């Protein structure tokens, strides 16, 4: 073939530009998520005050140079608690999404690749699990194993498995229909290699999107659990519990609800936007249309 012909097509600029437009959400989401992560990392090396130190002399201070976000009724620095609380939030999300992903993703892939009856069975079990809402499961789990963030989040993770499994299964079925899977089989690849080399990379965008959205849901669930008294036990700072503790002060010190409330909203918004942005970016349907 003649050499002067450009072999590589520049990627359609239309797509790129449109993606750019749409991906405000990706940018904002990524920025908010980074903010939460940076806060969490920072809190390991520095907080302005000891976040759990009760200091009756400094209770209910207004925001000031010393206490950026003021102090709560125990005289603890709210800003330090928000910083350390982001660790709890990240931990919560990572555990829940981790449990759901580590079980749900292989389950989804296997159920799609396995014989039909097996896949159906897995999906029926999935539907069954779906009937146990996350919070319900978390309450039941804490009743059995005692209340701790880890237990609650494992419960939420388990409740999230069906979301992953279902999505990944349908994604896998899509991938399995493609000719490159046929090509891989014709190349002598076994099912394991196909699952790992072809299916997994091609559903990875789904996984990332779902993980991001599930992360947001887990953060909300932790807040709700803390509110009900099933969540993170004191003294570990947790935004959800801060919100719950601030409730009685809503009238006299509304700022105590404002900061953790905003922090939760920022984290959830961040992960949701990130998920949305990634979905737009990955969705081939959006790219190919003109």
């Amino acid at each position, binding site marked *: *073939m*003649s050499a*002067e*012909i450009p072999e590589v*097509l*520049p990627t*359609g*600029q*239309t797509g790129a*530009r*449109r993606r750019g437009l749409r991906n405000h959400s990706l940018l904002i989401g990524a920025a908010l998520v980074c903010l939460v992560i940076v806060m969490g990392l920072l809190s390991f090396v520095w907080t302005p005050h000891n976040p759990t130190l009760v200091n009756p002399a400094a209770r209910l201070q207004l925001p000031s140079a010393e206490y950026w976000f003021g102090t709560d009724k125990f005289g603890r620095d709210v800003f330090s608690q928000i910083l350390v609380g982001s660790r709890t939030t990240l931990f919560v999300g990572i555990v829940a999404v981790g449990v759901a992903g580590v079980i749900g993703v292989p389950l989804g892939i296997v159920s799609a690749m396995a014989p039909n009856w097996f896949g159906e069975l897995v999906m029926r079990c999935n539907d069954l699990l779906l009937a146990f809402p996350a919070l319900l499961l978390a309450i039941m789990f804490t009743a059995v194993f005692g209340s701790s963030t880890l237990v609650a989040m494992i419960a939420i993770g388990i409740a999230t498995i069906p979301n992953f499994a279902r999505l990944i299964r349908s994604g896998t079925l899509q991938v399995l229909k493609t000719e490159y899977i046929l090509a891989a089989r014709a190349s002598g690849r076994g099912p394991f290699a196909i699952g790992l080399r072809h299916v997994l990379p091609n559903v990875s965008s789904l996984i990332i999107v779902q993980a991001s959205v599930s992360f947001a849901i887990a953060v909300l669930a932790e807040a709700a659990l803390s509110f009900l008294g099933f969540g993170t036990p004191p003294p570990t700072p947790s935004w959800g519990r801060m919100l719950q503790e601030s409730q009685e002060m809503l009238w006299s010190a509304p700022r105590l609800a404002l900061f953790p409330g905003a922090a939760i909203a920022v984290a959830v918004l961040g992960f949701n936007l990130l998920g949305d942005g990634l979905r737009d970016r990955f969705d081939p349907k959006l790219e190919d*249309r*003109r």
Partner: protein
Amino acid sequence: MTTHAAPPLAQDVLTVTGLGVSVGDRSLVDNLDLTIRPGERVGLIGESGSGKSLTALALMGLLPEGLAATGSVRVADVHHDIVGADENQLSRVRGNDIAMVFQEPMTALNPTMRVGAQVAEAMLIHGTRPTRRAAMSAAVDLLEQVGLPDPPGTARSYPHQLSGGQRQRVVVALALANDPALLICDEPTTALDVTVQALVLDLIVRGVIDRGAAMLFITHDLAVVATVCERVLVMYGGRIVEAGPVQQVFTRPRHRYTQGLLAASDLSVVDDRGRLATVPGTVPAAGQFPAGCVFRNRCGHATDVCASTPAWTGQDASDGFACHHPAPASEVGHG
């Protein structure tokens, strides 16, 4: 350009002047002129990315969001320009004066609505049948006309219960429901098997002839165009590169692209090594064609002069070509 275009001649069904389609500052269809007279069947031929489907959509005022049309599109008996008209005006023209048959029969019909109702709807919208009942019975008649078995039964079916060929017949019935003056067909048989294609082509041609309608037939298949059309326009890179009667264009192509296309599609001619004639390179993605002559990066005859846009050679828009180095008029490109 759009506003002071001359009013269409009484006998012209469609008059397109200087039509352009662009996204942002990138042009996808450029300065397209086209006239179709009543009862005329015109083919628009081009490969993927040539802008032929966009042209069809622009004629219907159906361009997707973000794409803008310029120039003028006038339709007989419509007192406004299609380009720049608002949705209210356009909706009165679509399906009534101009109708369209789309490429993909599997997705062109609403999956949740019975096909009879979908056909009847076309008539009810434009009030060409007085009542729902009349429209339904007219729909059944139409289904019969397009050769569907058991028309009343078919009318009660949902699209998924019909085969691809049958669905395309429904789409044709739908398009012909209001006896449009112009039928635009965008690759109507590409997704069909050859035997089915033959039937649907026959159906379309008969439908058009019976109604005295004109037709614009868009396809990438030279043989199909030659079969159903009298006149043809060859499109490449968003431009009409050659136009003329089918016989003339397909036997004595002037533009080097037309020539190459004809040669490459003829599988019965091989060189001494048994190889087919080829057009080198690949069709660029839409909007990625070179400036000047859009074909110059694949053309064996291209020179520096091709960096400038070649002028139209010929008596009018319906007969001529745009090439700096045309094939000699005597050269036979085919057979």
